[in-house]
């Protein structure tokens, strides 16, 4: 089998390639939606509970920080296996794109939560204090100061997280979640079809570039710090 085996495009089932591509994009976007919500909530909790004088609040911060660090440390491929029974209970199956969601969200949310916490810490303390001095409530400070002021960092963090999620979906695919990872492994590697592996790779790279481009454009648009 020579290098020409990479270019046997007549051996590619383009319908399957299309549906696998869609599965990858679907898994990425849906899991990212949950990751964004969960990550912002966790990040906010980490930020609000840090540096408190109350022992109970410090304890809460400590517990969340430990959980975040533990789940960030587990290699994704192991996390999937670890979560198999949990996934089965939650979505009723361990095969297919939906089954990939719990592990994708649980692995990426702590990662994003740390970035969210960092983004909030980068806001000038004086700006938050100014809002307090104006009589703003905690809620108003969160929605009118913390979130809008850190938006460029939140978006660029989300871009980085999305791109690592694309990588995770490929790994999940290898053990049955569907998508381009699954296709490359089943139809490419197992069936000795190098062309499918190559095409799946190119499509993934294009998806990554597209998300990066969208993220960068968004950040440029919302960042008013330097004009």
């Amino acid at each position, binding site marked *: 089998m020579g290098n020409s085996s990479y270019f046997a495009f007549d051996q590619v089932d383009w319908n399957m390639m299309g549906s696998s591509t869609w599965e990858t994009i679907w898994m990425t976007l849906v899991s990212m939606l949950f990751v964004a919500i969960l990550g912002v909530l966790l990040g906010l909790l980490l930020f609000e509970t840090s540096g408190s004088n109350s022992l109970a609040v410090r304890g809460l911060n400590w517990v969340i920080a430990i959980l975040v660090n533990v789940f960030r440390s587990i290699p994704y491929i192991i996390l999937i296996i670890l979560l198999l029974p949990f996934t089965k209970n939650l979505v009723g199956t361990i095969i297919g794109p939906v089954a990939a969601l719990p592990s994708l969200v649980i692995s990426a949310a702590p990662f994003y939560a740390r970035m969210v916490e960092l983004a909030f810490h980068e806001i000038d303390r004086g700006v938050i204090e100014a809002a307090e*001095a104006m009589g*703003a409530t905690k809620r108003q400070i969160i929605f009118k100061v913390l979130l*809008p002021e850190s938006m460029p960092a939140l978006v660029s963090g989300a871009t980085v997280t999305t791109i690592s999620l694309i990588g995770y979906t490929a790994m999940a695919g290898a053990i049955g979640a569907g998508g381009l990872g699954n296709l490359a492994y089943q139809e490419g590697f197992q069936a000795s079809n190098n062309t499918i592996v190559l095409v799946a790779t190119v499509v993934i790279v294009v998806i990554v570039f597209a998300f990066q481009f969208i993220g960068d454009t968004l950040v440029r648009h919302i960042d008013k710090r330097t*004009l």
Partner: protein
Amino acid sequence: MIEFKEVSKTFATKDGNLNAVNDVNLTIEDGEIYGIVGYSGAGKSTLVRMLNGLETPTSGEIDINGAKMSTLSGKELREKRQKIGMIFQHFNLLWSRTVLQNVMFPLEVAGLSRSERRKKAAELVKLVGLEGRENAYPSELSGGQKQRVGVARALANDPEILISDEATSALDPQTTDEVLDLLLEINKRLNLSIVLITHEMHAIRKICDHVAVMEDGQVVEQGTVFNVFRNPKQTITKRFVNEEVDPASSDTNVVLDDLIQNYPNGLLIQLVFHGDQAKLPIVSEMIHQFPEIQVSIIEGSIHQTQEGAIGSLYLQLLGDETGLAGAQDLLKKMRVETEVIHHG
């Protein structure tokens, strides 16, 4: 009226307790500009931050128009804070919002309707002289313009007091004067009490009615700006006043020392004029009456305060003893404060 009654604030630090504010008593009348001056770490920032509850006093009481700040919390405190405007050294604007949106922020906090917010914010932007820049972002503005936005934002909810926390310290001298003029104009137009903390005596002299000098958490001297400038009592106050009235005092001292060496018999005096005296031809009157005396002017300056001008003049007088004594008598008669620096 704002009253600080025996206010103290102690911070627990790793190296033990720090008395940031120590038994401060101050009364600030409605409609006046009250300056609090001190070097950094003197406790002035901590003191004013107790006005809007950003810090709570360890002991003592703060009264704002009859409301005891220490008894307020939650919703009541937030509502009171809406009535206390504050401007900051680093402006603390939201960079994600335009000028108009920044000014609308406190109005959103207060719960005004969208159309009311727009109308009020547009008026304020105009008041601080930023008409036409409504849709600019803070990053597109100069320091002086940013502080103008800060002032407009602080005025949004028709405050009872405006706190200025080193608001001109990050600005160049010309912009500092522009912002100080704006504060003075607002004070006069809205009859708004302003509490101004600074380490620059220039700001105090230019717009304040009363001043308190702080050192190590205590108010060591207070009074009208005019009186404190004319007759500073504490060493630290003298230092502040000299920095402002006489920035080149070390240069003057060199010249004075030279003159004392070269004319050991001459008389060196410093005259201090206040109010309308500063505009009278006192020196020429002296020369007319004692033509035999030689007068040379070494250094002079004049500064405007809210209550009137204060001038300072260093003179060397050469002549016979009767002439010199007569000249000093004349100055005394004209009520000019005279300090003899050297008499040979």
